[in-house]
């Protein structure tokens, strides 16, 4: 992304676009990624509560998937999971 | 009136020297003059010797320095004569007005002051009879107006009523006006 000059940005460091942190993809920060075992998961939503990056996507009270564009791979979900349904798996680098 | 008159008030903290300096300026303002009034601020408290100042002018006042050569000096408390050089900076034709039961020749002798004019008035007695308290500032204002002919006594009465009206009961304001007028009548000097 090309950064803008001083004439083209809001004054005072204001951010006028709400929730634009979403545009900042932090998924590339991961070395390990969480992988959820659908069989074991009880949908207790503890991972959703603990995830610091809102990367556990929930629909109708059930975990749908993980937002890998923003998940930084911190592993908190995996530690918190009471039924050991989330494993941290090393990212495989594409050669 | 000269282009500008400068007055120095000597009093003790609590005697109303600042208020007198302000009321005089407000009254002069009412008569269309330009004015400045300010106290000297330091660590003074009740009873400590202090000074305040009034400038009155026919033209806008640009000066913002202290007053060192006053045209007139008012001493609210005669015990200050032993402590402060109240004649300091007074020019040849300067006026000094002292709250005392003594006569002006006696004050001249005490101050070793042979220039200008010396006026005296017993503002403390006037205040004690009119207000039952020693608040010499307003009677001294009345005496100063007589001695200098700076403005009409009626204008000072209006300013006193305005200034004190918000804070004091009418009995106190009337007492002050009475004291102002009595001192205006009783002041003597040469």
């Amino acid at each position, binding site marked *: 992304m090309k950064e803008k000059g001083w004439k083209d940005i809001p*004054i005072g460091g204001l951010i*006028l676009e709400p929730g634009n942190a979403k545009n900042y993809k932090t998924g590339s920060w991961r070395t390990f990624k969480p992988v959820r075992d659908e069989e074991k998961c009880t949908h207790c939503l503890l991972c959703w509560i603990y995830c610091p990056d809102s990367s556990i996507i929930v629909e109708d009270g059930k975990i749908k998937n993980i937002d890998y564009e923003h998940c930084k791979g911190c592993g908190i979900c995996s530690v918190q999971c009471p039924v050991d349904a989330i494993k941290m798996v090393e990212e495989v680098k594409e050669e | 009136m000269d282009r500008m008159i400068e007055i120095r008030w000597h009093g003790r903290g609590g005697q109303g020297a600042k208020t007198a300096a302000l009321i005089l300026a407000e009254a002069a303002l009412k008569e269309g003059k330009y004015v400045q*009034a300010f106290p000297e601020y330091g660590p003074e408290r009740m009873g400590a010797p202090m000074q305040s100042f009034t400038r009155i002018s026919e033209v806008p006042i640009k000066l913002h320095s202290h007053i060192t050569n006053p045209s007139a000096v008012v001493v609210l408390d005669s015990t200050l004569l032993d402590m402060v050089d109240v004649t300091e900076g007074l020019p040849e034709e300067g006026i000094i007005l002292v709250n005392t039961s003594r006569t002006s020749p006696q004050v001249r002798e005490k101050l070793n002051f042979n220039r200008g004019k010396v006026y005296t008035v017993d503002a403390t007695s006037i205040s004690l009879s009119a207000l039952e308290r020693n608040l010499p500032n307003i009677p001294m204002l009345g005496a100063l107006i007589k001695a200098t002919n700076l403005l009409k006594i009626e204008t000072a009465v209006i300013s006193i009523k305005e200034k004190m009206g918000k804070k004091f009961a009418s009995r106190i304001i009337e007492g002050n006006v009475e004291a102002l007028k009595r001192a205006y009548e009783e002041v003597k000097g040469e």
Partner: protein
Amino acid sequence: MARVVGLTGDEVAAEAIRQINPDVIAAYPITPQTEIVQRLSQFVADGLISAEMVRVESEHSAMSACVGASASGARAMTATSANGLALMWEIVYIAASLRLPIVMPVVNRALSGPINIHCDHSDSMGARDSGWIQLYSENCQEIYDNLIQAVVIAENKEVLLPVMVTLDGFVLSHAMERVEILEDEEVKNFVGEYKNPHSLLDLNNPVTYGPLDLYDYYFEHKRQQVEAMEKALRVIQGVGKQFAKISGRSYGLIEEYRLEDAELVVIALGSTAGTIKEAVDELREEGVKAGLLKIRCFRPFPGREINEALKKVEAVAILDRSASFGAEGGPVFLEVRSSLFEKTERIPIINYIYGLGGRDIKVEEIKGVYQTLQRIARTKRVEKRVDYLGVRE
């Protein structure tokens, strides 16, 4: 129709603020500013203004509350002096950086220590790089006029910067002078209504104030602040002219007093400018071509106007009411001298530090400065670049 009244500098500042009627006042009392806050509290208690008075526990909180209020779309004001300004320092910079048009009287007082409550400019001069516009007042009338204009300057869309209106502690703050007060309605119409285009309380257009701003954008935001200051020069002049329409008193960035044909010029700001005028008048009667250049607006610095005004001058003395320790002179001197550097013909220029901690300055002392200038104009030699006026050896 204007009313003529006798008010002290503090009282007239409070009167201006009453008429401006800000939405929020957050202030903490400090000598010699105390009477401003005291009177404002009284106005609020008496229902004379609708402002929300926030009784904060410190100046740091006062400015913080103003920042919050201003960002929320309120017109916010405070007032302070010396150590109070020092305590709010962190937020003083933030107010300017967030481009919040807060207006604040600063009652100039020596910044300790040893502790002193009297006038010098060490407090506001210390804040000269904080991003605030600074207007200095010569007398009680100017305090009033500057405060009303400050609101319009600060809120101008091209500017959006906070403004300090300074007044000399005690010399003006506690001196009663003749002042012309405008009608409430006239002031109300002149200042108009403050509309923050990015209010924190506008739920339909959410905005973030004060995010982390690192080396990728911080510099650009500072560049914007520089630009706003630059634009303020013209806006301040425009507002000064507009103000003349309702008051009959016109204001510029500088004031030229008998400068037209002046050969010897003193430059100063604040209440001393008045005392210098008195000295100039006396010297003119003696046939000396003396003049005064009063700097009303120190930030942004009116370098071009000063250069223009000093075209035919033979010698200049600059009076500084604060010392810049370790520098080659006081802050006004450094600024003016730097500004005159490009002139093809160099004007001899000297600096006097004076009046620290409230030390009185007299007409005679100022006349002495003009005498020194006369000597310099004659000999073309400056013996002492920086000197001290009124200090005991």
